[in-house]
Structure formats: structure tokens, C-alpha cells
């Protein structure tokens, strides 16, 4: 309830600031005009095409990053020698800002989906990988030794000990990667000009359609909120399932 009041307050402030001349309405149009611009946008096919493009880049990039992150993470995590050998490399590559790759993406893919994917996959991959590595590090040594003492092979150990332990971390990684992937998808569109919401924002900006620009930015924000919420619900559901399953298996 109070949260709704907070949101209403934000809308009111944005309406009032330019109306009372506290802010130039060429810079910040009142809520009503942004809403009108949004109303005009959502009936165009172009808008929905852009939303679709952004979500396509997001989904494909996220899927690749999650698959790669999980596979690489499990392989590295399951082999202690690999874990030790790759630690420094991961620590070095991870903080490299993904936007450093923008010029490279432009040269390789121009304004295609490929540019978006390169940035999205790079940024989201690390989120997943690091979480999987945390998860693998969290494996209870006693569980691991128990599995060994029963002469479980490597594959059985991964399936029955490592994977169940790492699973909650994988979900966390997916949730983090989902929001990072959206940021990078929109960024690539905005800066490089790959098709999508980001490009529409850039176009609105250069053509001076300020209310439209705000409306589109609000849409990216709402998209972000929706993805966060969905990821959280997904994480909770999956973990609830996970726990109930674990609860039923005699420990």
C-alpha cells in the first residue's frame, strides 16, 4: 500500500516539477506527457518489434552464458588442479569491463544481433561462472569423502554430490546474469545501434522527442523490474522444489 503511495508520489513530483517551472519541461516533461507518448508508442508495431528484439538478444545471450557458465564451472570445479590453475585467470578476466569489447563488436558484427550477443554473453557468463565456482567450493567435504568411500566414479560424484550442492548457486547466478544481460543488451543497442529499445532511445534523443525518450526509458526500467521479479520467483520456486526433493531423500 505504502509502496503504491511512493510510486504515486514519484509520478506526482515528475508532473509538478516542470508544471511549476522548477525544471525546464524541454528537459523533463510532466508525467502526463510522458504517459501520452508511451500511449502513442505502444500502439505501433515498431515499438513491439523493438521490445521483441531486445528480449531476443537478452534471452539468447543469457541462455548461451548460462550453458557455458555451468559447463565450464562444473568442469573447473570438479577437477581441483583446474580450479587452482584457472583461479588467477578468472580473477583477471572477470573485472574487465564488458564495454571494452564494444569497438570489437562493432568491427566484427556491425549493428547485427551478434554485437549485442557478444556483450551480453561476455558479461553474463562471469556472473554464472563465479556463482557455480562458489557452489562447488561449498560442497561438504564429508559428503565428498562419503561418495569416494563408496567408490562413486567422477560422473556419479558430480551428479549426486556436486550438482545438488551447486544448484542453489546456479540459480543465484542465473538471477544475477538475467539483470546484467538486460543492461548489456540495451547498452549495445544504445551505443552500437543494434535494433531494439536502446536504439529507439538513441533515435528519440537525436530527434529531440524527449517525452518518447522518457517513455522508452521507463519501459526498460519496467522490463528490468519484471525480469528481476520473474527471476526471483523462479529462483524461489526452484529452490523450494530443490529442498523438498532433498528433504525426501534420506540423507
Amino acid at each position, binding site marked *: 500500500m505504502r509502496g503504491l503511495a511512493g510510486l504515486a508520489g*514519484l509520478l506526482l513530483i515528475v508532473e509538478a516539477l516542470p508544471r511549476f517551472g522548477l525544471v525546464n519541461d524541454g528537459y523533463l516533461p510532466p508525467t502526463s506527457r510522458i504517459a501520452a507518448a508511451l500511449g502513442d508508442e505502444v500502439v505501433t508495431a515498431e515499438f513491439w518489434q523493438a521490445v521483441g528484439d531486445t528480449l531476443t538478444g537478452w534471452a539468447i545471450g543469457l541462455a548461451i552464458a548460462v550453458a557455458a557458465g555451468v559447463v565450464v564451472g562444473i568442469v573447473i570445479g570438479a577437477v581441483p588442479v583446474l580450479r587452482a590453475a584457472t*583461479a588467477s585467470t578468472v580473477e583477471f578476466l572477470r573485472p574487465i569491463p564488458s*564495454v571494452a569489447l564494444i*569497438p570489437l563488436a562493432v568491427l566484427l558484427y556491425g549493428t547485427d544481433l551478434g554485437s549485442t550477443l557478444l556483450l551480453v554473453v561476455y558479461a553474463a557468463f562471469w556472473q554464472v561462472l563465479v556463482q557455480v565456482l562458489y557452489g562447488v567450493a561449498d560442497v561438504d567435504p564429508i559428503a565428498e569423502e562419503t561418495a569416494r568411500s563408496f567408490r562413486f566414479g567422477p560422473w556419479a560424484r558430480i551428479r549426486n554430490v556436486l550438482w545438488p550442492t551447486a544448484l542453489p548457486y546456479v540459480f543465484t547466478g542465473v538471477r544475477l546474469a538475467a539483470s546484467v544481460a538486460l543492461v548489456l543488451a540495451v547498452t549495445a543497442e544504445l*551505443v552500437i545501434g543494434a535494433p531494439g529499445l536502446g536504439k529507439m532511445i538513441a533515435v528519440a534523443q537525436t530527434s529531440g522527442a524527449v517525452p518518447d525518450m522518457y517513455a522508452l526509458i521507463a519501459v526498460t526500467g*519496467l*522490463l528490468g523490474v519484471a525480469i*528481476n521479479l520473474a527471476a526471483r520467483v523462479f529462483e524461489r520456486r526452484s529452490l523450494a522444489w530443490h529442498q523438498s526433493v532433498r528433504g525426501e531423500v534420506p540423507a
Partner: protein
Amino acid sequence: MKRLAYVLGLPVVLFAAWFVISAGSENFYAPPLSRILESFGRTWTLDRLQADVLPSLWRLIAGYVLASVIGVALGVAIGLSRGLRATVEPVLEFFRAIPPPVLVPVIMLFAGIGDGMKIIVIVFGCVWPVLLNTVEGVRAVDSVQLDTARAYGIGGPARIRQVVLPAASPQIAAGLRQALSIAIILMVISEMFAASNGLGFTIVQFQRSFAIPEMWSGIILLGLLGFALSLLFRLAEGWVLRWYHGLRSVTKGR
């Protein structure tokens, strides 16, 4: 000795592989590493560092510090007040969910294309993770710690400085770490949009003029910068939160 081999082994192998594989490269976009390294030395001279890297760093640090101060201050206020928190939380979630780079065009309207714009962009993008993590951290302060403070008459500013902030500091640090990588991204992007100097600007210039080895050297420099900053952050965090890491290792060991 063995540890050193593990730390340096793979990076050396990868580097050598890149060097060897790219050695005879005719590919215009992937020049031999030897040429990239050569251009690195040629490109990033002291003058260049002063003209392009220093302004970038200054914007980055100014924006980051401002965002941290604002984020922690607001976060403590919101975290301590249940009513305020319930009111503003959805608004904050919304702002956090906006991909920060789309703020660049908005802030350009208000602040033009000078240093001010870039700093404001960085502040606006970085403040949310700091703010939300501080709120979380403050909200999760142990009730026994708060009772202890009250029972011993520790109130007002002393309670915030001596109890609430340190108790929330691990969570605040997590927010600051997220904010640091966002700050670097925004620094580069804001410079790509509109600037006459800076790392982001220079790299895009190289790309547009098809100065490929120079572009690669810029990417490498940016990578090194990101790595160096995160290393600095980790060192600082390890020092400030040494009590926390110690506490964790003790409770984990038990």
C-alpha cells in the same frame, strides 16, 4: 613455488598461445599480438596517459565517491525507518532496474556534455546498488547488538557510527563492489557518447579510423584498469573488513 606456478601458469600459456597463433595473422581485425604490444608502447605514452587516462580516472573517482557517500547516507536513513522504507522501496527497485547507460541521453539534456555530465551519469548509475545494499545491511543488523547499544546508552550518531554502519559494512561493501564495475562501464559509455578526451573516446576513435592494433591496445588497457581497480578494492575491503573475514573463518571452522 607451486602456488606461483598455479597463479602464473595459465595466464602465461594463454598469452603465449595468443602470441603464437596470431603471429602470422593476415586477418585485418586480429593483428599479431606482437604488433598490438608494439602499438601499446607507442600509443600509451606519458602524454597520452595524461591527456586521456587521467581525465577518465578523475571522472570515475569523483562519480564513484559521490555515489558511495549519497548511497550510504540515504541507505542508512531508509534502512532505519520502516515507514520510509515501505514507501520508497518500489521506486528504488524501479530506478535500479533501469539499465544505467540509458541515463546518458537524459543527463546530457540537463548537464550538457562536459565532465559534469559524466560524473552525474556515474553517480546516477552507481548509487542504486550502494543504496539498496546499505538498506538491506542496516535492516539486518543483529537485534542483540542493537539492544546492547541501547542498554549501554549508545544512541544517536554514535549508534549509527559505532554499531549500525560497522554491522552493515559487509553488505555495504558488496554494494560498493557492484557499483565499481558499473562506474567503469558508465565512464567508458559516457565518453563514447560525447567527449573530446578520455579512454572511451580514444578507443572509439581508433575503431572509427580502423587503427586496429591501437584499438586492441586500448581494450587491453581498459582491461588492465578494470583489473587494477578491482584488485585495489579487494585489498581495501580485506583490510577494512578483516574482522568480518576473520569471524567468518572462525565460525566456518567450528
